[in-house]
């Protein structure tokens, strides 16, 4: 058990380290800032900063050139958005309809917590009611059954 737990802990600690981008592709931090936000168009879930593909190399060269020419990182990103659409950005921009995507995890977590809280409250209330019922109230007996018991008792007494 302890071994399993420590393994899990190790995995949790090791994952962020492994996810660090390789330092080989990009040396300039400003270039990395832009390139890491751009989707490599020929890859699966890789940024332009992380991909070794020729297309990504050409895109990095263009980003570098535009930054050197005096463009701001936002202007360079906008250039790519103009050409490829917002799809080229790895994270959707925080505006308009995109807020739905950004807020959905938080909103659904809050809704989930509320549902859980209500359910627990209902369960505990039901349990308390049941326990209180056992302690005080006499067991409910059907009038027909009561009548039958009374008659049978009378018959027994007459014998």
């Amino acid at each position, binding site marked *: 058990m302890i071994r399993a737990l420590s393994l899990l802990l190790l995995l949790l600690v090791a994952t962020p380290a492994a996810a660090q981008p390789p330092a080989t592709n990009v040396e300039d931090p400003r270039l990395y800032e832009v390139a890491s936000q751009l989707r490599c*168009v*020929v890859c699966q879930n890789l940024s332009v900063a992380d991909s070794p593909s020729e297309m990504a190399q050409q895109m990095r060269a*263009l980003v570098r050139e535009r930054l050197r020419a005096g463009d701001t990182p936002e202007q360079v990103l906008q250039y790519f*958005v103009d*050409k490829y*659409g917002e799809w080229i950005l790895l994270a959707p921009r925080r505006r308009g309809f995109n807020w739905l995507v950004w807020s959905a995890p938080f909103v659904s977590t809050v809704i989930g917590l509320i549902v859980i809280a209500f*359910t627990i409250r209902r369960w505990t209330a039901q349990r308390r009611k049941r326990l209180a019922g056992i302690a005080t109230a006499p067991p409910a007996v059907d009038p027909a059954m009561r009548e039958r018991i009374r008659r049978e008792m009378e018959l027994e007494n007459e014998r």
Partner: protein
Amino acid sequence: MSRKSLRWLLPAAALPILALLAYGFRVNHRDIPSPLVNRPAAPFVLTSYAGEPMSLEANKGRVVVVNFWASWCMPACYEEAPVLERNWRTYKDKGVVVLGVNIQDKPEAARKFIDQFSLTFPNALDPAGKVSIDYGVYGVPETFFIDARGRIRAKHAGAVTDTVFQREVDRLLAEPR
């Protein structure tokens, strides 16, 4: 929250997810919409493999078919090369020009490809990939149909067929200049 309201809430919560799923199934995920359609085509000047300048500017007033290809793009580029050549020969006297932009390739391999299909329309290497990025190219082959006024009117991803070529070009030729 009563049991009764929960009975309604659960299917109601599943509804938007199902709607999204239905939408996802109906959309063609291979169809990549380009924001460039109906926008002016980016100008470019390249040097063709024949040593001539190849530019969009020089072809103003004509319907231009810009095709992005690579010699390693198997089999789509090999399928469409004869189609492009055939249609270029048919349409070149009607005010249509085909320009091949060779991307992410080695010149020797590209020259071999041009010889193999006896391509007679101009083809040029895009050495730094700038033209391909300017056209928002994802992969090869991709073909852009540009009207006589220099606007991109259609984008086709994948091998061009006779049907696609003729449909797009005829449509643009039929427009008043």
